[in-house]
């Protein structure tokens, strides 16, 4: 498999949000604005790349019976690292995302890639796979966040263009998340089928 294809697969064919429907909890909860979606995606990307690399290294020596607890411990280590880093350098985003940062530990995308890819491939390939899937997640979350922000608060990346008026508040709340996700999924799969 070429290196380029490893990345594009994660972005399009195996897009974690719109195709595999993994990691729905942070997808629905943190995408109230484009910036929030983007930072959640990047946080997951960080954990995904590092845990993929670490797991591909230790996989040959981990006994099969305990591999899931071992992977979880590895992932939790990186999440703790990320949590402390974010708390120190980006306290505002850390506050907004709140509980969803520690919840990356149980994000099924991270564990899924470890199980399905990293424990069978080398370090380099696993890192690329992590980047691809992580970028796919980041892009989906940013787009979802952007759509919800435009409809819900009338702004894009924090830049307000309707002059202080309220947008359609439902899109900032949970129902809007489900609605937007559904319609974006339809569009994504329509384009995927065309090509």
């Amino acid at each position: 498999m070429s290196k380029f294809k490893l990345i594009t697969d994660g972005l399009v064919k195996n897009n974690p949000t719109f195709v595999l429907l993994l990691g729905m909890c942070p997808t629905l909860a943190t995408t109230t604005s484009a910036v929030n979606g983007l930072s959640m995606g990047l946080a997951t990307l960080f954990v995904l790349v590092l845990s993929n690399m670490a797991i591909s290294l230790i996989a040959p020596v981990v006994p099969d019976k305990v591999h899931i607890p071992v992977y979880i411990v590895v992932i939790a280590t990186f999440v703790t690292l990320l949590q402390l880093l974010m708390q120190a350098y980006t306290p505002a985003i850390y506050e907004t995302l709140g509980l969803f940062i520690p919840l990356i530990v149980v994000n099924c995308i991270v564990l899924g890639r470890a199980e399905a890819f990293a424990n069978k491939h080398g370090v380099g390939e696993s890192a690329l796979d992590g980047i691809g899937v992580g970028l796919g997640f980041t892009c989906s979350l940013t787009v979802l966040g952007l759509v919800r922000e435009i409809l819900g608060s009338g702004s894009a990346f924090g830049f307000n263009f309707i002059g202080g008026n309220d947008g359609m508040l439902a899109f900032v709340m949970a129902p809007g998340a489900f609605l937007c996700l559904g319609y974006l999924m339809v569009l994504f799969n329509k384009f995927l089928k065309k090509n």
Partner: protein
Amino acid sequence: MSKLLVSPSPHIHSKDSTRSLMLDVVIALIPAVICSVVFYGWQELLVLGVSVASCVLLEWAITKYMLKQPSTIGDLSAVITGILLALNVPYTTPWWVIVIGSIVAIGVAKMTFGGIGQNIWNPALVGRVFLLVSFPTYMTTWSKPTGLFGVDALSGPTPLGAIQEGLMQGSTVQELTAAYDYKDLLFANLGGSAGEVCALALLAGFVYLCCRKVIKPWITLSIFATVALTSLIFWGIAPERFTDPLFNLLTGGLILGACFMATDYVTSPMSLWGGVVFGFGIGFLTMMIRYFGSYPEGVSFAILIMNSVVPLLNMWFKQKKFGRK
């Protein structure tokens, strides 16, 4: 229609079509429409026009350009959605808010699920609830009816809104309801969305629908009975905290919801007992939301919640098959 089985004759021919049934519902809504225009004036006419036009246009555009199917606007169901949506919003709502409501009602709640007969929730109610959640300022600023030729433009809360507000400030229900004359509620003289104001006109439409056998009355009656009973119990226990049954029957969108929206063919159960349980659920949830919820009015939420349970009710209360014991 590949599963359509044609059995040997004799066949019963029925004159009813979707179009004729929907036309009956439109006719039944006319008294309420006239009533609301008379009480609210030309602004209400504008709301009705925008709502109906955008619903019908949208359904036509979606069937033509997105689904590429024969158009379904001839069955008049979009017209009803438009009228019901208009009757569910204050007459002061800006036109673009109503257009958004129609987009959600027809585009999201109806056509996304496959058009008439496929939708899980009542389209007009989905549109209404979406607007209520999205634009609380437009949807809860009520003006007292000024009349077709009236001039005064007092703005005031709906009776239910005023009572919830008052209870929070520590007044008792008796003090608060003293301001309302039940005759006013029956003959439309208070603030509210168009469909909330004239109980009598709505009931006339309901009687017409029952006489024409377009709808069966049990869902509506079950809602009324449950609301009356539930509020009777609470009112009997603590009359200073809870409003009385008659007040609850006459205020809010209860009559509009029970007569025209809960009885929608697509989103209500098919059997008698299914309908009774459905009505009980709506009535009970409505009263729980009114008494304990953060919104003063709960009919639309109650109907939407019970709409989601309809497939289950249809499974539990199967219609008896002909010839079976």
